[in-house]
């Protein structure tokens, strides 16, 4: 404990009291939440994010010598608090590099603000899906993959398991979802795929918070589906797995979305979670070079942010590392253009995010091969990948099954553009002409 305190002391010193004024500094605001219903998610993701920034400082002395500094602000996952944190930190330290609120509600509250303030808003794995159209949302980046992409990848995965997309004909798929804007988002795209592949979808909502699902699973038992897609949040996930076990539905045929597939969702369900498969844009485990590096440079020097070392390598922790990788890559890209070793403005950071290219070679350099998918951003495409990988819970840990699965990008993109155009019309926006921008 004493050691932990000491380590935190050092971490805080390094984080808050930056040494000297000579070196350039890049400021990263953290709209984090470590209390309340989602504290488990928040503490792991933001802890990892801070660890990654710390790792860059420790190993390379910052990005090309520009030290990273950050400040946390507690949002409590509450919109008003999130707005306050954003307003408090947006101009600090020469301008916020990026805003990552980790809450779809706060993301919505910030969309207009970041456009006015010219600060990039990066939402990886949540947020507003149609913001993937960079022409209408120049400042918003729902990066790597969105709920729609994930859904199409899941249907592909089911197709693979069934032995081909043509085998989906007549299959029954239940979509069990959190009854909110979040859960409902993919229904339309799933309907479209059902028409194309001939599977029979049924949609069963679970009222918030979802700590009771008996009636839903009895309904599922009536439907006798081949697959269940679980789109839950928080307590809804372990409850669903337990209920599945209760009616004897094979967990190998329950597919969770990426907010359903973490240790926090499976461990409380105990044995009932065994066999459960979940999607993700990052995988779990400590055996990736990037995790090892963070352990070596940050934790072995007692500068880690996580009080509990056993949480390193969990799904949420590794997701936080992905957020860190993306942030730092954007800085490298932007510095390559605007001057190496110089602190970047928010607008320059935006350019950086829009031009991130993380190919397989770069992934290997980052020590993240297989850890996250390759990403290539552009002016029109603010998603950049759409790939999803599946993991299975073996009762103790997540095991990766199969390779990255690509989303049905055409289908998703068409819907994104329709939706974004409608948004633009409602708001009276003129789209950017991406052909003119380099």
């Amino acid at each position, binding site marked *: 404990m004493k050691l932990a305190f000491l380590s935190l002391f050092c971490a805080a010193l390094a984080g808050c009291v930056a040494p000297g004024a000579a070196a350039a500094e890049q400021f990263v605001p953290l709209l984090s939440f470590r209390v*309340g219903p989602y*504290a488990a998610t928040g503490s792991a993701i933001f802890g990892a994010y801070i660890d990654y920034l710390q790792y860059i400082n420790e190993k390379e002395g910052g990005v090309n010598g520009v030290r990273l500094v950050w400040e946390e602000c507690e949002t409590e996952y509450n919109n008003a608090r999130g707005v306050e944190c954003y307003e408090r930190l947006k101009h600090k330290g020469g301008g916020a590099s990026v805003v990552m609120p980790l809450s779809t509600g706060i993301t919505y509250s910030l969309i207009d603000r970041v456009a006015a303030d010219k600060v990039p808003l990066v939402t990886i794995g949540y947020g507003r899906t149609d913001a993937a159209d960079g022409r209408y949302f120049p400042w918003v980046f729902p990066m790597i993959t969105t709920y729609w992409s994930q859904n199409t990848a899941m249907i592909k995965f089911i197709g693979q398991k069934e032995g081909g997309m043509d085998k989906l004909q007549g299959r029954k798929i239940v979509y069990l979802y959190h009854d909110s804007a979040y859960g409902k988002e993919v229904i339309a795209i799933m309907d479209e795929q059902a028409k194309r592949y001939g599977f029979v979808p049924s949609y069963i*909502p679970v009222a918030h918070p979802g700590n009771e699902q008996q009636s839903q699973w009895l309904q599922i038992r*009536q439907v006798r589906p081949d697959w269940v897609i679980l789109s839950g949040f928080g307590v809804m996930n372990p409850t669903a797995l337990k209920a599945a076990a*209760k009616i004897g539905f094979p967990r190998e045929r329950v597919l969770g979305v990426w907010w359903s597939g973490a240790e926090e969702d499976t461990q*409380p*369900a105990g044995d009932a979670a065994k066999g459960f498969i979940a999607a993700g844009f990052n995988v779990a485990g400590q055996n990736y070079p990037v995790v090892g590096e963070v352990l070596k440079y940050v934790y072995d020097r007692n500068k880690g942010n996580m009080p509990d070392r056993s949480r390193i390598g969990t799904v949420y922790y590794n997701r936080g590392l992905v957020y860190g990788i993306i942030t730092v890559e954007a800085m490298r890209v932007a510095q390559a253009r605007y001057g190496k070793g110089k602190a970047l403005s928010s607008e320059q950071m935006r350019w950086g995010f829009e031009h991130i290219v993380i190919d397989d070679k770069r992934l290997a350099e980052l020590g993240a091969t297989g850890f996250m998918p390759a990403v290539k951003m552009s002016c029109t495409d603010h998603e950049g990948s759409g790939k999803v990988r599946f993991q299975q819970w073996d009762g103790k840990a997540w095991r990766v099954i199969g390779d990255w699965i690509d989303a049905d990008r055409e289908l998703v993109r068409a819907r994104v553009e329709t939706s974004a155009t409608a948004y633009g019309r409602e708001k009276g926006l003129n789209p950017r002409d991406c052909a003119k921008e380099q």
Partner: protein
Amino acid sequence: MSELQFFAEVLTGGLLSGLLYALVALGFVLIYKASGVFNFAQGAMVFFAALTYVGCLEKLPRWTGLAADSVLLVWLALLLALAAMLLLALAIERLVLRPLVNQPPQTLFMATIGLAYFIEGLAQGVWGANVRGLELGIQDVPMDWVLDHTGMIVSRFDLFAAGVAATLVTGLALFFRHSRVGRALRAVADDHQAALSVGIPLATIWRIVWAIAGFVALVSGLIWGARNGVQFALTYTALKALPVLILGGFESVPGAIVGGLIVGASEKLAEVYIGPWVGGGVESWFPYMLALLFLLIRPEGLFGEKHMDRV
């Protein structure tokens, strides 16, 4: 499977869940009876109790050197959690209730909200934000015998939990009817001033009741924690208890049970039979609408005390 069988299955499942709602509602009823406070912090207490138990279970092997799977550990953790709840009850009586004695109900209600924040912060501050599993040693699987004979799924765990709830409620109802403390409690509930004047120690009664409510919170925390994991969402169990309370009446222990059964059964049946017509998710509001209907007929809840208004 026949339609009737399905109906019976949904109904049984609903009734069993209803008893679990009643368990949480019980904590509210006790405190309301004794001090006329609608204790908003009950959900937070459930969370705190369960988290303390699991946290102790985690830390004890390191503190005491006991083997991680020894039975002693479970009892020790249970004892510690109980002690924590007792301590909490004493502190609440001393620091919150006593200074606020004789204040209007909404002030006390507000104070319990402050209390809820405090307890939530304390729980996660001390034990960390991790989500933890909790194993009570009873498998949440269908009972083979029932499945073979009727084709219905009745979970062993649910049956056990319902049994615990029923025992607890019966025990408490008897306790309050026949013991000295119970009678004193009813006197306090009836009229603070009169109870004081015949020599009933108000503060002691409050301490006892809050401690019992703490114990009930621990039991519900353990059962709900074993079902859904020990995490912040345990505080939401209070949401499930609200319609039960309203339906059963705030002052009645048996009312909590009957209310729980009605809410549990009807919300499941509504979700299955009405849900599909309107797009599902009706469980969120159906119990409240139902309670509203009941109240229009009987404005003081099923078992609540009728109040006479005198001008």
